[in-house]
């Protein structure tokens, strides 16, 4: 790869290619589409968390003037779901509802008001069943079973894996510590409510425009549920007004809009209300965690045992992957020679949980990083230094067979500790203590009710899942580049821009390779008729996978252009480079052609100019069942320092500042990588401090934006984002991911800072004032200064799959 200083586009901060359309209101999101003869669809949803459907009478709704069609589960009986092993959803429930908000009937009418009135006229007879509303109830075999296909009653999935010699690890430990944590569920809350338009046209072909992150998977779900050849269906992802993982499943409303359109022969739009978005959910799983580790006096971990229990909600969604993810990435930050993971996911009668930014990894990362902070405190060690010392090495494997290519974590720690003045500020607070778990850090200013503290935590995330969602051996990302005789360059790719800038990425790469400006590149994406498959915007996969495919496609065309130019200029093709809109001989700059002239020569010689690129991640899954979740071309690294003020009278925690350093490999556009880092800091802050999907009396307590607290400008702390650029061999120009990883260290850094400030542990998020006050009260009574779950359920786990660690994994140091 060329050196940084030679790159004209890559590595330079610049606006996204579509930014002017976004600031002028020109960008058309799905709900901005108004097709000729378009009508409106609405969905009737269950008012019971768990019930049998005895009967549905739609006669009165059908008779209402302006109603064009009414459908129920019998019209769409084929099940679907994002994971092949969890095909458990129905576009409209056939005989059972599993949460308040589960879709039951669909209506198409001439306007939304008529459609809504029609919903009121549909009569559904339910037979209520006992609802299962918590992890503990999900483990109770006496309660009704939500799905018949679960591993064990309402346990959707059990995972049990063991790597390396756990017994030897604990034996070698100087100390052993156990902790229990809870991470409350929360939701994506994209500003755009999901919307789609289904259009079955007179030629018998179907088009769906949808605010989706994964048009390819929606395409497959439509083929299955509508029993129509995929080639007759076109899915176009509209610009997505915020995703964060919330628009990565195929959804009921997409299938219903298409079905209604097929029945009435007119385009049908369905836009969810904000309340419906809360029910559609697929947000962060609530996770109860138990962690036990053995460690040396200097903080080195000798063995780690982690258990998780996930509250999955009513359907499978990505849940099996989520369950594995709560155990997969504990090993990629620090050297761990022996690791055991036991996890399970229960079905409950709540909106289904799925992937939210960080997918299944922020919860265990919170548990692990707070656990490590406690260890550091027990040992009287600097928590930053203790982590720093045992960061994984480049070009090694973890005990659970994940491949580390590059790791910039140590540098991330250095950057945030330096920027925050960590050493000076924390030196006064800490006093070495014996292992007791009772010694408290003191940062109190005598006499003031407001105490200040600093906390640190780290994290890591994958740059794209190593395996696709459904088994296949095909490319994960495809790119076609077309160059025409007018000098126009068009890049076609199925990738889906959700605001992160993936369309711009394609333009940057094509511009870099052809020596043009991003503005010269036309990008056509996320349209299953026009673009080659890309699996979608999830698992932080797009930059690495699409980027590599795009380089391959552009270089295929570039080679032809250089060859034709070389013949014309009578110079070797190797001496030519493309820059500033020209093809130039680097040995004799007088020999050059404009890009357009060179393209014409190439077209004359080779015919129509196009190139294709395909990317498949390296095959690195370990030799065991379940090894498919976790592998990735590379891992990003992040470290965060949080500065907080805690009011000991009110329990209110104010986060004053977050320093967040992120190793996302080479920053293809530093402006966007910083934007992702700042956005992650904000979202992690929201999860740590206020966001929660809470339920009361079997109902979603807060399905509105007013009640679901998310940070405003007045809440959000000052954020200082710092980029650490390792040049990763797997990434395009050395890039790794940036969209999800930086969120991970934020909640534990804040929890650790609260402890530093007032000496109490809040072992669950969100960290609300009531919890802080309760912990302070415990402390004042001389009890354990902590708020958090007291125990982890007693579970009979399956025998673990025992796996030998790979050759170059961290070894136990006696």
């Amino acid at each position: 790869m060329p050196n940084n200083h030679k790159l004209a586009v890559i590595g330079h901060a610049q606006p996204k290619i579509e930014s002017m359309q976004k600031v002028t209101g020109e960008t058309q999101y799905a709900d901005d589409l108004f097709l000729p003869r378009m009508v409106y669809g609405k969905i009737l949803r269950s008012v019971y968390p768990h019930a049998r459907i005895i009967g549905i009478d739609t006669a009165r709704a059908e008779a209402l003037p302006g109603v064009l069609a009414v459908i129920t589960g019998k019209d769409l009986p084929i099940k679907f779901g994002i994971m092949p092993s969890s095909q458990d959803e129905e576009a409209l429930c056939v005989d059972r509802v599993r949460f308040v908000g589960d879709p039951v009937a669909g209506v198409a009418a001439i306007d939304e008001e008529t459609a809504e009135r029609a919903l009121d006229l549909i009569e559904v007879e339910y037979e209520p069943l006992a609802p299962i509303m918590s992890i503990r109830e999900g483990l109770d075999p006496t309660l009704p079973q939500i799905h018949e296909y679960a591993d064990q009653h309402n346990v959707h999935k059990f995972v049990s894996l063991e790597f390396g010699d756990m017994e030897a690890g604990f034996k070698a430990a100087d100390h052993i510590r156990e902790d229990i944590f809870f991470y409350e569920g929360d939701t994506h809350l994209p500003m755009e409510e999901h919307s789609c338009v289904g259009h079955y046209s007179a030629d018998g072909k179907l088009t769906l425009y949808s605010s989706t992150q994964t048009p390819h998977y929606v395409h497959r779900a439509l083929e299955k549920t509508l029993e129509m050849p995929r080639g007759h269906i076109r899915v176009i992802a509209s610009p997505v007004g915020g995703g964060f993982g919330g628009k990565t499943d195929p959804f009921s409303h997409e299938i219903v809009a298409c079905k209604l359109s097929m029945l009435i022969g007119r385009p049908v739009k369905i836009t969810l209300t904000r309340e419906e978005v809360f029910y559609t959910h697929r947000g962060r799983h609530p996770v109860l965690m138990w962690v036990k580790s053995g460690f040396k006096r200097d903080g080195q971990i000798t063995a780690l045992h982690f258990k998780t229990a996930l509250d999955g909600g009513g359907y499978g969604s990505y849940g099996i992957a989520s369950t594995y993810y709560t155990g997969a990435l504990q090993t990629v930050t620090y050297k761990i020679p022996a690791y055991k993971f036991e996890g399970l996911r229960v079905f409950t009668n709540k909106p289904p949980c799925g992937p939210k930014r960080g997918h299944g990894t922020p919860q265990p990362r919170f548990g692990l990083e707070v656990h490590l902070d406690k260890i550091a405190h027990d040992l009287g060690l600097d928590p930053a230094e203790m982590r720093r010392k045992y960061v994984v090495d480049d070009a090694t494997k973890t005990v659970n067979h994940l491949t580390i290519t590059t790791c910039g974590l140590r540098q991330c720690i250095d950057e945030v500790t330096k920027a925050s003045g960590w050493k000076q500020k924390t030196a006064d607070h800490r006093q070495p203590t014996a292992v007791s778990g009772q010694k408290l850090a003191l940062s109190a200013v005598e006499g003031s009710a407001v105490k200040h503290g600093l906390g640190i935590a780290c994290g890591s995330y994958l740059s794209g899942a190593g395996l696709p969602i459904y088994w296949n051996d095909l490319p994960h990302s495809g790119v076609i580049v077309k160059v025409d005789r007018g000098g126009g360059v068009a890049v076609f790719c199925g990738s889906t821009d959700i605001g992160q800038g993936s369309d711009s990425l394609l333009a940057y790469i094509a511009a870099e390779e052809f020596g043009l400006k991003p503005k010269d590149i036309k990008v056509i994406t996320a349209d299953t008729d026009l673009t080659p498959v890309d699996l979608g915007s999830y698992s932080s996969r797009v930059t690495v996978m699409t980027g590599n495919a795009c380089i391959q496609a552009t270089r295929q065309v570039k080679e032809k252009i250089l060859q034709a130019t070389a013949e014309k200029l009578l110079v070797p093709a190797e001496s030519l480079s493309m820059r500033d809109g020209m093809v130039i001989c680097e040995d004799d700059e007088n020999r050059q052609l404009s890009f357009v002239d060179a393209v014409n020569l190439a077209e004359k010689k080779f015919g129509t100019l196009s190139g294709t690129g395909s990317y498949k991640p390296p095959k690195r899954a370990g030799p065991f069942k379940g090894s498919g979740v976790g592998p990735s071309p590379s891992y990003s690294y992040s470290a965060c320092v949080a500065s907080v003020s805690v009011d000991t009278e009110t329990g209110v925690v104010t986060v004053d500042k977050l320093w967040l350093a992120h190793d996302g490999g080479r920053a293809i556009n530093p402006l966007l990588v910083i934007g992702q880092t700042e956005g992650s800091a904000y979202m992690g802050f929201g999860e740590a401090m206020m966001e929660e999907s809470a339920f009361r009396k079997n109902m979603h307590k807060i399905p509105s934006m007013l009640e679901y607290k998310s940070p405003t400008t007045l809440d959000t702390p000052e954020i200082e984002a710092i980029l650490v650029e390792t040049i990763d061999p797997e990434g395009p120009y050395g890039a790794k991911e940036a969209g999800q990883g930086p969120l991970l260290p934020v909640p534990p850094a804040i929890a650790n800072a609260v402890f530093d400030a007032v000496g109490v542990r809040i072992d669950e998020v969100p960290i609300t004032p009531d919890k802080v006050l309760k912990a302070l009260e415990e402390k004042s009574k001389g009890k354990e200064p902590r708020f958090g779950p007291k125990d982890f359920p007693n579970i009979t786990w399956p025998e673990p799959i025992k796996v030998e660690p790979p050759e170059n994994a961290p070894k136990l140091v006696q």
Partner: protein
Amino acid sequence: MKQIIHLKVNGQDYEVYVAVNKTLLEVLREDLNLTGTKHGCELGECGTCTVLIDGEPVLSCLALPIELQGREITTIEGLAEGANPHPLQTAFAELGAAQCGYCTPGMLLSSKALLDQHPHPSRDEIKHALSGNLCRCTGYTKIYEAVEKASKT
């Protein structure tokens, strides 16, 4: 009940025949094809649908057109002067203040109302002016920077 209503939007006069309970948001998007105004909740909670009425930011999902006859309504489509973007628009684009872009029209109009009254606001004044506009992508930082940049042009 439908009624003829006269509205002045972005300097242009419109006559619409709409149900009296239709919100300004709905009329702008559905009757005037001004889809630049977005919606996030239709309940006055998120600020996404912000427009200006006589220069003041107003949530169009809670405003009724029948009460706005004779007032100056400005939407995102009216922020640029012809093909020349407003300095706020340029700054938002250049500094990455629009990620998914969905809250951006509302953010821009709230920012314009601020700059019209306080051409050189402090960071705190910007935070207060935008406290009713939620953004899930940016963490707000780039938005502050863009407003500050625009205030200097």
